[in-house]
């Protein structure tokens, strides 16, 4: 029997897993990563890039690099979320004849959000097939608990375009609860806290007889780990300026190193009480006496 894959199609990153010996196992992508950035790009030669490689070239190709497409799934063009997303992204968005949303590339080509999501799903499918050594045709995809019928349908459409039969659309908090084995417990009310790269969702679920009922959902659609990183970077820059009188904001190379160090520090602070950020020769290019931090 062919394997069914489970897909977390995220705003910032996506992941794919399958059941192995009764346990869910994350499948590494072709680049060896456990998560794949939800980014699709089209190069000048017409080549389609998905994931990490698309992200790496984003700054050189802003009009044709599509990210955060989940924010557009099954939405009306006039809705507040689409209007907010339009101001945030570097690619063009226009109204579709049916009142939905179209993404317009630099060459005028138009794509629907499910078409773009399908490209991400296709990459996950191909990588899963390479890993498992067999064809994959069926999947379960998770969506936020607050997704309405249209958004769920758009996600199903994306799966279909990618050549996947979508067996189920499951609520993200439900999937998280199942992964923690919470279905085995009896009547309980639990809160599932999901802090992603760019979104924060909290859901209250009622469990009982194996049923997960979503009692309430809330959150902040524009708050995530990336904002945490930025706060850490800002703090490091301010401290360094106080200490050394040098503003690292104007130094691209230093900023890049700070970004990596800030993310690493954030990750370390999940498991330890304190951490040290040590960036030797951070401004070595600009001064003869290289200050450290």
């Amino acid at each position, binding site marked *: *029997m062919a394997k*069914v894959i489970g897909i977390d199609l995220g705003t910032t990153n996506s992941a794919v897993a399958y*059941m*192995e010996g009764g346990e869910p196992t994350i499948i590494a992508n072709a680049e060896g990563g456990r998560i794949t950035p939800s980014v699709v790009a089209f190069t000048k030669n017409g080549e389609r*890039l998905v994931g990490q*490689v*698309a992200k*790496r*070239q*984003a*700054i*050189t190709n*802003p009009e044709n690099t599509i990210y955060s497409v989940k924010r557009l799934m099954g939405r009306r063009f006039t809705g507040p979320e689409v209007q907010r997303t339009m101001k945030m992204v570097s690619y063009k968005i226009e109204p579709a004849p049916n009142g939905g949303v179209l993404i317009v590339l630099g060459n005028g080509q138009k794509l629907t959000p499910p078409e773009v999501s399908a490209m991400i799903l296709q990459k996950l499918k191909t990588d899963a097939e390479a*890993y*498992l*050594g*067999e064809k994959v045709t069926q999947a*379960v995809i998770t969506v936020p*608990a607050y*997704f*309405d*019928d249209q958004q*769920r*349908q758009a996600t*199903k459409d994306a799966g279909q375009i990618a050549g996947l039969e979508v*067996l*189920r*659309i*499951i*609520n993200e908090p*439900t999937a998280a609860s*199942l992964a923690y084995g919470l*279905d085995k417990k009896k009547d309980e009310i639990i809160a599932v806290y999901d802090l992603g790269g760019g979104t924060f969702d909290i859901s209250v679920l009622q469990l009982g*007889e*194996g*049923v*997960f*009922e*979503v009692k309430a959902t809330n959150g902040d659609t524009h708050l995530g780990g990336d904002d945490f990183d930025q706060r850490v970077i800002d703090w490091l820059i301010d401290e360094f300026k106080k200490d050394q009188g040098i503003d690292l904001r104007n130094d*691209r*190379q230093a900023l*890049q190193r700070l970004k990596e160090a800030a993310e690493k520090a954030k990750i370390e602070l999940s498991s330890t009480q304190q951490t040290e950020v040590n960036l*030797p*020769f951070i401004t*070595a*290019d600009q001064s*003869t*006496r*290289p200050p450290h931090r």
Partner: protein
Amino acid sequence: MDDKIRRAEELLEQRARERGGNGHANVDTDAPAAEQPPAANPADQRAEELTNDLKRMAADFANYRKRNEAERTEFTKFAKSDLIAKILDVLDGFDRALATIPEELKGTPWVEGMWLLERKLRGILEAEGLKPVDSLGLVFDPYQHEAVAHLPSDKPEGTIIAEHQKAYRLHDKLIRPALVTVSSGSEGKEKN
């Protein structure tokens, strides 16, 4: 797990119907698979089911073993790659430090010692299969380079005009892309 979800969703729908309101939205309302007509001999049917289960498990195991072997081969080759990738940070530190030696220290035995240390570290890593990859002046390739800036220059669009961090390969695998600035051509405006 799928069964649990199916059961859960059915129960949920039933509850929603009883309440008369609409429960939380769910696109998937497929009816459960039609019931099989009762078999002539339940024991035969059971035997067939179990045989199929066994076949499936044997196939799964064969696949698992294949995958495990492939992973082990990869592992022996790249087991060190995580550690080496971390040490690259130290190598970068040496590069930066030695590129900006204060004038008054240049040529002193102490600085020479630092050069020797750097060469020793590099030698050890190269013996493990590590190779630096040059990027400057090449055409930007997202499989090898990560763009951190896009600036106008007299070089053709897409050319790498500055390298902020070197790319490294371990054997044939890129373990770290280069961080680069890419030319946006002579008429492009600054975009970053």
